[in-house]
């Protein structure tokens, strides 16, 4: 095992990525229960304060503390992304596993549907679903969840096609193992590394998609805080209070960067 550990140590991406990700995960949980100020409390006397000691990220046009709003935003975005990946991931993996393993007509049809959904740019499909169900965090989660099923299905399917003809699957069948046992017990552990990388990439896309929707005003609605909606408000005060846009923006960037470095670390391990 020693040899493996040094490889991980040497792998900078993994360590930096893990560091940033853990930092944000902590912030996510902190944001749920505590924020230095009430994120919605307006304070006209402290409008457009530049980042200072009392307000590490400054205040916005209503005098609200940006840091508290960003904290709330991180936990909201994080929760949305996690639930999205959970929905899309599980359903997509099951569909991918079954179509990949069994193949045949069902596989053809599912693949055709997948191609069609692939045609929808990520934002567009979410836009449509949200326009039907109306904005709000639960609809965003559902919209993004559905959106992620095809990408998970496609990746898991190609893994299963790669493994299903391997000799160890044939020998398992000869020994009397049923198909389901082969799918989940024999093949599944082999695709975990790929699945893990897909999950981290999926998480990133979910964060970016949610922020995009909220920026367009049809994602998470006030009073729920979202980094995306903060950015759309901040755009009109770009000249007078640039930090109002930079702070939430950089938070998203670091959040996503952390995860992509982590996934880079995992797949090069």
């Amino acid at each position, binding site marked *: 095992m020693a040899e493996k550990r040094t490889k991980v140590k040497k792998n900078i991406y993994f360590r930096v990525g893990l560091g940033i990700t853990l930092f944000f995960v902590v912030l996510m949980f902190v944001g749920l229960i505590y924020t230095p100020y009430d994120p919605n409390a307006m304070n006209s006397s402290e409008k457009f304060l530049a980042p200072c000691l009392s307000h590490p990220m400054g205040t916005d046009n209503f005098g609200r503390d940006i840091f508290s709003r960003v904290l709330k935003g991180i936990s909201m975005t994080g929760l949305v992304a996690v639930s999205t990946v959970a929905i899309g991931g599980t359903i997509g993996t099951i569909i991918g596993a079954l179509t990949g393993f069994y193949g045949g007509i069902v596989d*053809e049809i599912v693949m055709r549907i997948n191609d069609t959904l692939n045609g929808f740019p990520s934002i567009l499909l979410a836009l449509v679903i949200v326009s039907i169900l109306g904005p709000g965090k639960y609809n965003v989660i559902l919209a993004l969840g559905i959106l992620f099923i095809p990408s998970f299905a496609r990746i898991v399917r190609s893994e299963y096609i790669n493994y299903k003809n391997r*000799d160890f699957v*044939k020998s398992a069948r*000869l020994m009397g193992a049923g198909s389901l046992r082969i799918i989940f017990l024999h093949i599944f552990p*082999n695709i975990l590394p790929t699945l893990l990388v897909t999950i981290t990439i999926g998480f990133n896309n979910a964060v970016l998609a949610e922020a995009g929707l909220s920026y367009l005003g049809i994602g998470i609605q006030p009073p729920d805080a979202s980094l995306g909606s903060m950015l759309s408000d901040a755009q009109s005060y770009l000249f007078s209070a640039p930090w109002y846009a930079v702070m939430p923006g950089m938070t998203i960037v670091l959040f996503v960067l952390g995860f992509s470095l982590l996934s880079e670390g995992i797949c090069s391990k």
Partner: protein
Amino acid sequence: MRIYMDYILEVRNLNVYYKSIGRSILSKPAKKQVLFDVSFDVRPGEILGIVGESGCGKSSLSKAILGMNKMYEGQIIHHSGKPQMIFQDPFSSLNPAWRIGRILEEPLILSGIRDKEERRKRVEDMLNKVGLDESYADRKPVALSGGQRQRVSIAAALIARPQLVIADEPLSALDVTIQSQIMDLMLELKRELGLTYLFVSHDIDVVYQMCDRIMVMKEGRIIELGDTLEMFANPKNEYTRSLIEG
């Protein structure tokens, strides 16, 4: 029907077909015939060699016998429990995500042995039988050499006590020195566990030493079948002679 077990496997007028990949899901997939009216019997305890150049249908025959390819006409009558297979490529025949112990435990679980302790004991016993010590149980296939992996896949095939074992080119992926060790191992295990081998190979020398009887195949047909020594003494068929002189 015979009352006493004269044959462990009977194959009668076997024609095997393959689906060539159809143009698309719409057009009917064209059927390509690979085996033509193959008939032979296998006696319990013998090693029947199946030899021929690549593409002569010997692998298709073993797949049909093992039920991996259902598209055939004719009869395949098994008089023994589930036949097992030893594969050619040691790198693909073991589940890379599992430890060796777990790989060897699977056939026992599938044959209904509930008691974990008994399974562990039989795994260790089998590892020793194939010349590996118990510590290999905790390793993953990636940590083993080609020869060691082939020993594990033989152990996996035999641990559930099959009677008929089909070895499809078990040696050709290994180095020469290791090949002879695996040959000795297979012979020893056959004697100890009273097995019957169907030994598929393209290498006439290997088949000569391992097999009691040899079946020579060419383009999906059996062109000669007989006792190894007689066949090598005076091969009846021209093609067999060219194989032997080599």
